[in-house]
């Protein structure tokens, strides 16, 4: 039982930090650029992706012994696409404002390399429970980076955190301006690049050292 726990823990750490999908595998950059202007969208996107990845991994893993190998990718895509569409519909129904801001990017979870990547590289070769944990871990890893990037972009670009103004008035009076670049897509590029750089190079943070 204990060993089981450690085993899951290891998968979790691997997905969230050591082999972080964005910072290490450099997957899912496209949506990371698009939805990180605000933290709220980033969080919702993170949750959506985590759910889709976790359940697609679970489903595919439990079917892995029955999926014919020559239509493997198509089956995986069908499962993922169905999950994505359902998620999108739910968002539209219950979180309309955010789904409007996420626009097509929820739909594009289908093409998010993380989901298919985990299905291909992990779920096809591991039991359902492991795959589910792995999907969750990777989803959280992705969300973590997304939220970090969104935090920086929202703070610098709009002077807000989760929609609340945090820049004190006297700073604005002294001439503070929001950094417009952070609102543009390249801003996310720079932030992600710098994060990856720091993660892989800062002594003590980098896992490559250990």
């Amino acid at each position, binding site marked *: 039982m204990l060993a089981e726990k450690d085993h899951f823990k290891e998968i979790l750490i691997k997905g969230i930090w050591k082999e972080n999908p964005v910072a290490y595998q450099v997957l899912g950059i496209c949506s990371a650029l698009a939805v990180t202007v605000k933290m709220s969208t980033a969080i919702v996107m993170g949750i959506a992706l985590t759910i889709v990845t976790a359940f697609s991994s679970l489903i595919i893993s439990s079917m892995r012994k029955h999926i014919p190998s020559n239509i493997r990718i198509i089956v995986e895509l069908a499962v993922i696409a169905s999950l994505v569409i359902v998620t999108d519909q739910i968002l539209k129904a219950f979180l309309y404002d955010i789904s409007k801001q996420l626009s097509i990017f929820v739909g594009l979870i289908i093409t998010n390399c993380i989901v298919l990547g985990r299905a291909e590289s992990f779920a096809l070769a591991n039991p359902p429970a492991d795959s589910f944990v792995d999907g969750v871990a990777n989803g959280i890893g992705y969300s973590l980076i997304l939220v970090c990037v969104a935090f920086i972009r929202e703070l610098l670009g709009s002077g807000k955190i989760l929609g609340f103004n945090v820049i004190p008035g006297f700073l604005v009076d002294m*001439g503070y*301006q929001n*950094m*417009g*670049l*952070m609102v*543009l897509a*390249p801003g996310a590029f*720079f932030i992600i*690049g710098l994060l990856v*750089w720091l993660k892989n190079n800062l002594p003590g943070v980098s896992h490559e050292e250990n």
Partner: protein
Amino acid sequence: MKWLKRIFDKSEKHFSGSGKLAKAHALFDATKTVFFHPLRRTAFIPFLRDCLDLKRYMTFVLISLVPVTIFGIYNTGYRAGLGSGVELDLLDSFLHGSYYVIPIILVSYVVGLFWEILFAGIRKHKISEGFLVTGLLFPLTLPATIPLWQVALGISFGVIIGKEVFGGTGRNILNPALTARAFVYFSYPVSMSGEIWIPNLGAVDGMSGATPLAVAAQGNQSILAALSDMGFALKNLFWGFVPGSIGETSVFCIVLGMFFLLVTRIANFRIIAGGIAGLIFTAIVFYLFGEDPGSWIKAGPLYHLFAGSFLFGITFMATDPVSAPGTNEARWIFGFLIGFFTVTIRVANPAFVEGTMLAILFMNVFAPLLDHMVVKYKVSKRIPNV
């Protein structure tokens, strides 16, 4: 100069090995080599070497920037006076201008140097002279009213993202000074775009109005008439008595610097000539086939050449050897396309009227590709020898 040498020799031990200030060795070394040209015997063929080194190379770019800088300071002061309704004399203009411009240059150098030293310390290499140029070029492309903290952020971005992430001078693909400017331009558009910037003596707010490039004629007026109405006659643009970024206004001073760079062959004439040719060609094409008489389409080549920052960019930014192509044929293409894109962006992109910066950065990215194509072509022409 013996005493100075002695000071350096004495303090060397603090900066090296286990000295207290060993972390600042790069700074010490940079300072020392400025005063005393280092001696180093040749170890490999050829046993004699040219006297030109990178320090002198970069210093010459600085020298070429002197006229532009001095005129920029004067013009800033003079404009500030006009903005407050006073006509200042030469000295007063200069003093007032210094009050605005010198802090910008200082901030740019100090902050940039801080990053340079930090990276030189971590990577254990020497401070590269290229920064001397970046540190002055960047402020010259800014309006005098820019807040100093934006200057600091800009130069930090330029040095880190524009240069150090690639491994330092010589390995960057973009011109760091332009990268810094682009950062400020997109981050703080209010301070940087569309309007001109005249500090107002005493008041906090600057005045603003349209830059020559943002001028659009009203009604049936032609663009040329509109420009001269606003005080942007060709003569004023040539001498530089117009508002604008600190170093970019005076065509005359830029041409002085250009001449110096060309005579000393620091700047490659192909880039400059190609650029001017590209600009004139494109401007003429637009002039002949364009429709709208009130827009810059009909401004003609001379106005396109003199207004905005094209000449400044093509002379000092595009000729940066690191980010420009290294083959002669590619340099012609590179220059020509910068001219072409400058006019195209000015005419076709209403949001970012000043196309030079975007054109140069864009072509910077393509420089290695141009080089690659030229090299491949030359290789195909060669009698193989393997």
